[in-house]
């Protein structure tokens, strides 16, 4: 057989490098996600004033608290950029540190969300209280679920880099996770504005 061995086994004439292909796919997927969250946010906007006998947004939302947890999530985008920058420069140690920092910030945000949900339930808002409650919890839970999946992806990327599984296309993996992570952050900016700031 040929003595030529490619770094990427899928690379042959007519086939583009795999990292590029994965990035195109991630962009297509994120395009689909925009419509997903768009629909959830539209549902919320339709039901924001349908509070029935239950509490309304102004009775519940603690804007300073949610502003802090939003700030934490936004800072995780900065650490994500630093992780990507380190992986571009082949600095595996810094890359791991920043990946773990990003995951930690994401988990802090999730903890804040859990705390917030508990507070709301104690004040009498559940998914069955009113259409407002249903749409608020389903929208923010789906966002939280996306953050949780992102945290898992970050941890997996960090741990795989120890086992040398990332190899030559490792930078690409970090970039892919980064694309996803920034997207989830941007969605939160929209949710924070539309769901929290505009309601009180």
């Amino acid at each position: 057989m040929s003595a030529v061995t490619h770094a990427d086994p899928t690379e042959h004439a007519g086939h583009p490098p795999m990292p590029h292909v994965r990035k195109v796919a991630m962009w297509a997927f994120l395009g689909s996600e925009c419509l997903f969250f768009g629909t959830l946010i539209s549902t919320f906007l339709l039901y924001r004033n349908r509070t029935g006998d239950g509490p309304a947004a102004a009775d519940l939302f603690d804007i300073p608290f949610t502003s802090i947890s939003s700030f934490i999530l936004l800072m995780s985008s900065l650490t994500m950029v630093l992780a990507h920058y380190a992986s571009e420069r082949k600095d595996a140690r810094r890359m791991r540190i920043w990946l773990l920092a990003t995951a930690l910030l994401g988990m802090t945000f999730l903890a804040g969300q859990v705390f917030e949900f508990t507070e709301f339930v104690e004040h009498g808002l559940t998914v069955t209280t009113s259409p407002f409650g249903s749409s608020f919890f389903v929208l923010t839970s789906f966002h939280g679920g996306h953050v949780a999946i992102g945290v898992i992806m970050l941890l997996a990327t960090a741990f795989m880099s120890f086992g040398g599984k990332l190899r030559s296309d490792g930078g690409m993996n970090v970039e892919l996770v980064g694309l996803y992570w920034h997207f989830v952050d941007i969605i939160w900016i929209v949710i924070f504005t539309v769901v929290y700031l505009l309601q009180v």
Partner: protein
Amino acid sequence: MATMNPVIEEAVAAPHGSGGLWSWVTTTDHKRIGVLYGVSAIMFFIVGGVEALLIRTQLALPNGDVLSADAYNQMFTMHATTMVFLVVMPAAAAFTNYFLPLLLGARDVAFPRLNALSYWVFFFGGLFLTISFFVGGAPDGGWFGYAPLSTQVGEVVRMDYWALGLQILGLASVLSSVNFITTVFTMRAPGMTLMRMPVFAWMAFVVSFLLLFSLPIVTVGLFQVFLDRNLGTLFFSAAGGGDPVLWQHLFWLFGHPEVYVLILPAMGIVSEVLPVFSRKPLFGRSFVIFSGIAIGFMGFGVWAHHMFTSGLGPVAEAAFALTTMFIAVPTGVKIFNWIATIWGGALRFKTPLLFSLGFIAMFVIGGLSGVTHSVVPADSQQHDTYYVVAHFHYVLFGGAIFGLFSGIYYWWPKITGKLLNERLGKVHFWLMLIGFNLTFAPMHILGLAGMPRRTYRYPKGLGFEFWNLIATVGSYVIALSIAVFLVNWWRTTRRGEAAGNDPWDGRTLEWTISSPPPHYNFDTVPLVHSEDPFWHEKYGEDEAGHAVPAVAASSGQPQAGLADEEIHMPSPSYYPALTAFGLFISLIGFVYVPVGLVAVAGGLLVTLWGLFGWSMEPLTRDGHE
């Protein structure tokens, strides 16, 4: 193949088993996945057809008593769900899987294992919907699942099967859309610019975007239905302050683009077949492509014409009436381009051409009755009558199914290496055309006479008897025509005429390689210099513009291409099927919450196992070194 490169043969043969059930379960070859989609679609076509025959038998005579009201509700719900999600969509996916890479000059899709996952998720989704018949009854709230039909919780779990089944089928379609879009953007052969792509590839590309952007909308809606049913949320509960009309919006925001998801692949097939059998290039090729793109965009702006009787108010109704009339323009552009393509062509009336011509004629009728629906006052009268049933069968059966059969007869020799029998093919076509019109043309009259849809009985003396009987006779003629097709299939498998590489004097790249194609598709990656590349290899033009055989016409592999040192094809993998199986188990668990949560957890563990194994497994095993 005339010249088989022995080095290539050796390099790619080793890691691929060729026979046995297991090799089909683990396959990552886009052509085999295409065949799996196709065979599944034909299987479900028979299931959906039997459901249709039961409906027509029930309605043959007044006060029919073949089916109970309950069974009838299940039949019309499952007939529509099956035909839309388990027949036309996978049939289009079969052609896209098999031919998109071949038409682009690629060796596979961008993500072969993701492609296998799409198929297996679809397969288990179809199985999931179908087993509902045996566990307390199939979904019975209509394929559109309007609240409160879908959200009211009865003794039975029928609409849970529907909500979850559509959800998982949607996942399969989103995955394959991402795959196809990436394939078109990154895998085209050198010289295959976007505007040189065959029209079928273009239509598959547009369909992928339609699915990518419309499915997430209904995904959210289906989650909301499921939560309303099982968690007590109030999204669509009018009593609790929710709004059932929201569901209608979410469903049709998906449902109308879905209509174009069903018809655009057939339009693409017709745009491939007509030039080949007219021996002329497609008239106004770029115009056909751009009108396909226009349909894709405008398809997102017409959904509320399904809701003219929901009380939207005059402004919204006027706006959607106008957009609906306007979307007929790019569709009309295509019709005229197809007619101009066959105009003055050297027509060869083979079966694929007959089905394509049938498509054009029937689709024009369905399109025109569609325009009558855009007129709000008229539509308020036609709404929920058999006139609507007549309309959408003219576009989805007369349109999509005729187009897909055209594709089956056109590409069968490439897929199997054998030509379907022409005489039986023509019998199939004429029986289907006659049966189709007998069945659905009378429904225009029945609808305008006031016969409502989705009612399991009609009394004597309303003037419905005659045309209902004719329609039932027609449906059995359609069934006969499908039987002729199945006989043709069986007969061709046993003793079909060998097709050779290029039985139709084709124009596109798939005809340059052997039938069936080798699993790496192309010995050398082709270099593309024009649209219809194979035609321009074979034929030049004289001064009058007539095609004349090119001087240096060669056989076999005429494309000068880029040679590879090695060809790496993806290895078989059972992880995609395992991942999909896990989802299937957890889906069944979700129907029976809270007890089923055990199955949900078990299924998710299997899925995680599949995904973990997948991510640790290299795409290509270099077992041949």
